[in-house]
């Protein structure tokens, strides 16, 4: 989404020029033609499902009661938005998103600094750091689940031999956050490392000449220069974290009110076969994600990588 918003910008200065030469025109036409197939495919695979799910969300459409299908306007939205289960899941999702992204930012920054500053075996260090991100989430989630299973799991035995942590709400949520953090810190670090590479060495040297301590250099020089990269990393991870599904599905399956909005949507669509309510939920998630992206871009001024907002 951020891509499309940003990539239109460089085109604007061109529009401003009155006289466009023949060559430019032909070039632009060719450009449009070259983009057309991709744009059409995108429309077909994303536009159609979005429109269709909005259409479904306006109907009473339960596969188990096929005779009772009818258009009911916004009734499904009223049902979902006045339901306590939905808001519980929404709260849980927000909580997981905020906590895990915050921890990831701190740890990711640390890891990025380590990877950036490593002098020996840089390739090895970077590869090792990326392993968690390379493991399939479901596989990783299963190993977390077994590690925390009462009696047999090594972590359960180490930290809480008497309790079944995955069956209690707060510990289970903590384990979900832990699994999320472990999994995506490398991704965060990777994005942040790209930002670190933008900080000129001269700037840091000048700062230390002026007597700035390491901490001051970090907060007054590195972070301001890296701000665009940090915001992009936060945006990506927030959008991802808000749609958390696989970790929860494996670890608790949403029991003890640990389900996210995506879990609940899955339960209503696939288990409940209620296409109306399920689609309503997916539209609501879509809107929530859109709002998050909008906030990041318009309020914090995040720019997508590659589109520096014409500041060059």
């Amino acid at each position, binding site marked *: 989404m951020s891509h499309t918003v940003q990539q239109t910008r460089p085109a604007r200065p061109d529009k401003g020029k009155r006289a466009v030469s023949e060559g430019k025109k032909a070039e632009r036409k060719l450009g449009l033609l070259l983009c057309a197939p991709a744009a059409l495919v995108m429309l077909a695979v994303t536009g159609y499902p979005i429109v269709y799910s909005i259409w479904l969300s306006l109907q009473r459409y339960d*596969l188990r009661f096929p005779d009772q299908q009818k258009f009911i306007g916004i009734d499904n939205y009223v049902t979902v938005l006045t339901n306590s289960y939905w808001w519980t899941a929404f709260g849980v999702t927000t909580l997981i998103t905020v906590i895990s992204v915050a921890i990831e930012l701190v740890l990711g920054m640390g890891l990025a600094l380590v990877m950036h500053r490593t002098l020996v075996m840089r390739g090895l260090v970077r590869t090792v750091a990326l392993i968690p991100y390379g493991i399939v989430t479901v596989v990783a989630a299963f190993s977390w689940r077994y590690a925390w299973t009462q009696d047999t799991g090594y972590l359960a035995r180490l930290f809480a031999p008497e309790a079944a942590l995955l069956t209690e709400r707060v510990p289970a949520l903590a384990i979900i956050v832990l699994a999320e953090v472990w999994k995506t810190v490398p991704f965060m670090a990777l994005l942040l490392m790209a930002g670190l590479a933008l900080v000129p060495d001269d700037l840091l040297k000048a700062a230390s000449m002026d007597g700035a301590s390491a901490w001051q250099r970090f907060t007054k020089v590195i972070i301001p220069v890296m701000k665009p990269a940090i915001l992009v990393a936060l945006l990506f991870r927030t959008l991802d974290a808000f749609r958390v599904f696989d970790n929860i599905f494996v670890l608790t399956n949403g029991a003890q009110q640990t389900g996210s909005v995506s879990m609940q949507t899955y339960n209503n669509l696939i288990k409940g076969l209620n296409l109306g309510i399920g689609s309503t939920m997916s539209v609501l998630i879509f809107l929530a994600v859109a709002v998050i992206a909008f906030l990041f871009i318009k309020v914090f001024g995040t720019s997508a990588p590659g589109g520096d907002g014409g500041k060059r």
Partner: protein
Amino acid sequence: MRSGHHRVRGRRRLGVALGAALIASPLLGACGSDSGGVTVNVYYAAEENFDKVVAQCDKAAGGRYRVMLNGLPREADGQREQMVRRLAAGDTDMDVLGLDVTWVAEFAEAGWIAEWTGQDKAEVENGTLAGPLETARWKDKLYAAPKNTNVQLLWYRDDLVPEPPETWGEMLSTAERLRSEGKPSTVLMTGAQYEGLVVQFATLVAGAGGKILSADSTRAVVDDGAVKALGALKDLATSPVASASLSNAKEDDVRLAFESGSAAFQLNWPFVYAAMRKANPELAKRFKWAPYPSIEPGNTGTATIGGYNLAVSEYSTHKPEAFEVAKCLRDAASQKYSAINSGVPPTIESVYDDPEMAERYPMRDTILAQLKKAAVRPITPAYQNVSTLISTILSPPSAIDPPATAARLRAELQDALDSKGVLP
């Protein structure tokens, strides 16, 4: 794309070949199975030795068609999800479906399974116990053939309890007396947030003469009997004789805890008997069974039934053969084989009288007696939602507040029946 460097083109050709191979391989796999005429695909959950029953029916077909067993996931939710997804998409590769007794209404109402009529229907109805047969019907039509049934019993140790209790209250007071004497006293029950808790609740409601849903399953009733059942669950959960892990226990946890010797009672399915003989032969000698205790004294042994029914997919392209296979898989001989070799209780009454059953199934008379006054879990197409809501609202059982919990059940179940409910 026009600029075709040789290297790029070579790579693309490799890509195309790989892509083609990927697309073609599942097709090849699919073609291989039905190259020799008609194949009837049976989809059934993992059951020990069921493959031998299928092989028997394959042989009985005498080459007119093949019968293939396709395994479904171990967990009930997984089984249902796979079938539902494929049926909703009109998959023609599924012929005979193994349905949990609570799914028949849903599949029938959605138009996914074919009605049994005429001779087939008469054959299935002949000699089949009324309770299991009830689970195969929807709106007075027969949609499935009961393959096996299941019913929970009260299991106890006769060295601790010489005379089994008949009511819920008696069971708790006996356990509390044992506890004060310093003997094993725990009452074990499936209390985790899952279908097992719903079964216990439905059984208690039936034993109190109450109802959860109205007879036509359009209204959530949750009457006084249900309130009493909620009270009984709470009584157990807050009693010192309840196990500490009650709100976490599924049927296997219950079985294991009893086998370790710390408990006096367990409410569980008959599979525990064979398991006990294997795991703890010493304790197995003292391991006895009785009808499920009820809240009202006269209703002892009123329990809800479980088990599996066989249905034929509406999208099957070989329906006549599929009906034949379904009948074969659940005929008296197959049911006897499954009862003896897999431990699943038969649905045909005459099978219980078979002499071979006596050794392997000593509790058969109790089971049969209980099946004859069995209660059926609410029959509704929205059962999945009803069950999910009940298990959510009743968890943990110690937090039940009977009148308030009943009111919440009434409101949320009604929404579920009207497709207005949200699943947690």
